Every structure is written in structure tokens, then in C-alpha cells.
């Protein structure tokens, strides 16, 4: 920590952020080493061992087909983190580039891009992704596609706003006076100055995307069983909510932990950037 006047509030915020980052590392570890961590095959059914409560052999119990919930939950990190990272990578790059171009060039191009943004954002929350994924048909790539098509405008809007104010700053004027090309100005002066907020937004967006993807699967329009996915595991647990609540508790807990990890990390980043602490570290 470089800040000398770290008051307790910032410290607490950062502690949550540190917790978030640790949790993310832990989840990434689970995803990478899923085959070594899971005690059972996540797809293996043992029909004589259905709906067993958590035990030493099955830490989170078994589901309605006698599959090990712990192993399924561990493998589920691959699906959820995979969707989150893929969607956020694709949308943050596309959205940021569009935002930079749109804000810098202005004019008709800006007008068209911004109306595109408005149109996509006119569909509240998960509605558009629901329709796209629902009609395209379920499956990993369709979920990624649906969420990518609906999430890019958040970056475009944010970045464009920043570009509009950056454009008027002295260093951009100076570069222009030195006859730097537009491309050079965008690449060297505009884009790097937007990256901080894109990183913050991207971190928070991973949380959003993971919830959305799980929601789609929960509704039956996303990832389908037998693929171990937390949202579809929740759906499968509903009929046994009374007699075997562990089917519902553990996958939900994992969604919450994952979303919380990214929210904490993103919040901490935002907090740091607001206060100007460690600016250089964050941009990287």
C-alpha cells in the first residue's frame, strides 16, 4: 500500500478487495485442477445412492441421479468462470473500441453507435439475453453469444463519455498541435486513459454475466444437464427441496461466492481508483 493516509474505511474496503482476489484465485484453482480435486466423476450416476445427505464420501451429498454434488460443483466453476471470462473479454474489447471511435470521431458514426447502445439497453436486465439464448437453443456457445450481444453497450457508453472529456484535455490538444495522427492519439492518449475504468467495469461485469448465465440455465434456457452447471443444478434440485435441500444449497452457495468475489474485487478497484491510490498498478 502506497497511501500514507490510509484511513480505516479505505483499509476495510481494501481488505474486502483482497478477500475477493483471494477467492477468485481459489475458484480459478478449482477450475484448473477440477479433475484432481473432485473425489468422483461429475457425470457418474449411482442410482442406488440417490439423494444422500452430505457425508465423508460425498461432502455435499448426492443428487437425484446419485451423482456427487461436490464434484459437480467443482466442475461447475469451469463453466461459470469460462462464460464470465469469455463474455467479458469479448464485450470489453469490442465495447471499448466502439466507445473510443464513437466518442473521438463524433458525428454520424457516433449517432449511429449510440442509438445502437440505446436500443440494446432498452431491453431491461436479462430479457434480451433470455430471448436470444432461448430461441437460438441452449448450449455453451449460445449462452456466450447471447450475453455478448447484450453486454457490450455498457462499455461503449462508459468509454464514450470518458473520451468526450479526454478529447478536450491539454495533452490531446498538444498531440494534435504536433500533428499526431488521429489513430496515434486514440492509441497513445485516449485508450490508455480509459483502461482503468474498463478494468473496474469488466470485473463487476464478470459478476453480472455469471449471474445471468446461471439464471438462463436455471430457467432451462442455458447450459443443459448433464453438464455440471450451477444454475441447472439448482433447477434440478427444486422437486427435492423439502427432503434433500442440499441439492439446492451448495450450487447456490457457489454462485454467491463467485459473484461476491468479483463484486468485492471490482468494488475495491473502484475505491482505489477513486482515491487515486496505486493508479499505475491498476492500469496494468
Amino acid at each position: 500500500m502506497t497511501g500514507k493516509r490510509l484511513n480505516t474505511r479505505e483499509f476495510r474496503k481494501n481488505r474486502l478487495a483482497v478477500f475477493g482476489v483471494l477467492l477468485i484465485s481459489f475458484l480459478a484453482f478449482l477450475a484448473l485442477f477440477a479433475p484432481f480435486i473432485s473425489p468422483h466423476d461429475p457425470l457418474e450416476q449411482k442410482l442406488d445412492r440417490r439423494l444422500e445427505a452430505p457425508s465423508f464420501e460425498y461432502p455435499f451429498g448426492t443428487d437425484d441421479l446419485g451423482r456427487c454434488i461436490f464434484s459437480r460443483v467443482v466442475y461447475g466453476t469451469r463453466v461459470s468462470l469460462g462464460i464470465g471470462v469469455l463474455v467479458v473479454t469479448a464485450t470489453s474489447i469490442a465495447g471499448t473500441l466502439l466507445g473510443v471511435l464513437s466518442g473521438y470521431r463524433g458525428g454520424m458514426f457516433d449517432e449511429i453507435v449510440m442509438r445502437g447502445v440505446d436500443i440494446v439497453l432498452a431491453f431491461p436486465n436479462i430479457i434480451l439475453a433470455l430471448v436470444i439464448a432461448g430461441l437460438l437453443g441452449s448450449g455453451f456457445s449460445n449462452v456466450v453469444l447471447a450475453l455478448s450481444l447484450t453486454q457490450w453497450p455498457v462499455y461503449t457508453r462508459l468509454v464514450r463519455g470518458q473520451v468526450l472529456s479526454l478529447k478536450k484535455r491539454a495533452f490531446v490538444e498538444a498531440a494534435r498541435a504536433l500533428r499526431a495522427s488521429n489513430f496515434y492519439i486514440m492509441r497513445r492518449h485516449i485508450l490508455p486513459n480509459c483502461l482503468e475504468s474498463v478494468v473496474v467495469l469488466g470485473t463487476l461485469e464478470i459478476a453480472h454475466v455469471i449471474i445471468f448465465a446461471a439464471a438462463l440455465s436455471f430457467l432451462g434456457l442455458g447450459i443443459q444437464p448433464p453438464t455440471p452447471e450451477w444454475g441447472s443444478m439448482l433447477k434440478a434440485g427444486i422437486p427435492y427441496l423439502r427432503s434433500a435441500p442440499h441439492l439446492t444449497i451448495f450450487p447456490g452457495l457457489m454462485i454467491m461466492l463467485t459473484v461476491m468475489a468479483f463484486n468485492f474485487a471490482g468494488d475495491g478497484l473502484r475505491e482505489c481508483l477513486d482515491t487515486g491510490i496505486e493508479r499505475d498498478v491498476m492500469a496494468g
Partner: protein
Amino acid sequence: MWNYIAKRLLLILVVIFGVTLVSFSAMYLAPGDPAEVIAFARYGQDLSAEQIEAVREAEGLDAPVYIQYLNWLEHVLHLDFGKSVISSDDILEEILLRLPATAELALASLFLSLIIAIPAGVLSSLKQNSLLDNACVFTSLLGVSIPNFWLGLLLIWFFALTLRMLPSFGYGSLENLVLPALTLGTSMAAVTTRLTRSSMLEVLKQEYIVAARAKGLDERTILIRHALKNALLPVLTFAGMQLGYLLGGTVIVETIFAWPGLGKLLVDSIFARDFALVQGCVLFIAILFSLSNLAVDILYAVLDPRIRYDKHD
């Protein structure tokens, strides 16, 4: 001011036009020939080529796509959303029939979230960095991270199945409303609490609060007349904009609790591949959302004269 409103109205027309395009093209997202999909939904597995052709003709699917769109748009402009391709019910009628249930759920959730969030946020801001404040901040951080479909299931498990206090599904009585509204309301309260807290902290720093203290007003008056009144403006604006969140959230909550609203209608129509109904629902929700955002923006401009009208975003 009037310029601002006129400009916003013009923009919203452009956006709604775009929204109709997107809603219409929903049908062509589904793999396969729409006529065949509709015929399949209507008559089941054993289809003859004649049946498919009959559907194609009856639904106007033999025309070029842009003609289909223009036909559809013309009907929509006359408030005719068409008929469900499966049940042949009038779509707008069906939507309006479902709207009250969604509105009831949304308003109850909004109300619940405000009566949780405003006191919590205010208390939290007054006792900044206290144990209570920390607890509030942490709980609201936790709250935004809990997926509402999981929260809904946990509430059913606890209140309906274990304690047997409340029904887990159904519609009509106040008892039925409690769990769905709690599901949707608490996750919203998490965000609103944070907003109330930061808004209060911001206002309490202002000079007019110092001035009020210097005048010797008692703390109660300062808090309620001077601080809260100003701090609540962004909170209420935010609550207005939350309608979108609510419309999206109801999709999931209505499905869990079998609540007969718009969200459930949309999900069911997607499953049934009832394209016309999907188009109608999506269009209706998007227009409703756009108009309510517009109303909130205009209201905000009226309430807070400091807002600048020369920029639309």
C-alpha cells in the same frame, strides 16, 4: 427545458423503432423454418407438408422478410400485436391480462426495498464506520451477490416447506405476495441501501448543513428537513429506474413462484416457440421500460433545476 423534452421524445421514437426491429427478428433466431416450427408447436410431431404450407400462408411467412416486418409493424402501430400462433388468443389482450400481476409484484418489491433501504442507509450514514455501518455495508454487498433465484428457493425452503407459514406458489392473496416480493425486494434493497448511505454522506458534507448547525437548529430538523429531503432525490430517481431491474427480475421470480405475470408469459412463450407472443412480450416490455425511464428523466429534470438540458446523456 421544452427543448430537452422534445429531444428526448424524438430519441425515444428512434429507439422504439429499433426495438421493433430487434423484437421482430427474434423469430428468425430460432434454427429451422419458422413455419415448420409453428406447425410443429400446433399440430405435434406428425406433420404433413400441406400443414406446414398452410401455416406458412396463414401466418404470411411466404412474403419476403422485410414485407413481413412492415406488415407486422403496421399492425403493431394500430395496437394489434397479432394472435398467439398456438392458442390463437389475442396477444395484447393476454399481455394486459398478465400486466396487473407483474405490476403488483414489482410495486410490492419496490415498496419493500425502500422501507428496508432508506432507514438502513440513513442510520448507516449517521454512524459512519460504526459496527452498525459496517454490518450494513457488508450485508448490502452480500445482498447484491445473492442470485435472486437462489434466494427465492431458500425462502420457499424455509418459510413454506420447513415452517409452513406461507404458500410457496399461487396468486391472489396477500400471503402469496410475501415470498416473491421479499425475493425481489431484498436484493434491490441491497443496492438502494448503499445509494442512500452514500447520498446521505454526500449531503451531510454540504455547507448548508453546516449553516443549519451554526444557526443552532436541532439535529432532528437538520436531518429530516435539510439532509434527508435532499439525499432522497437520487434514491427515488434510482428507484424509478429500477423498474427495468424489476421487469427483468420478475421473469425469474415469477417462474419460481408460478406467478401469472408478464415475465412468466415470456418464458412460457419462448419454451412453446410461440414467436408472435415472444415478439409481443419483448416489444411491450421494452417500450414500457423506455417510457418509464423517460418519465423518470423528465421528472428529475423538473425536480432538480440544476440539471443541464443541452446534453441528452
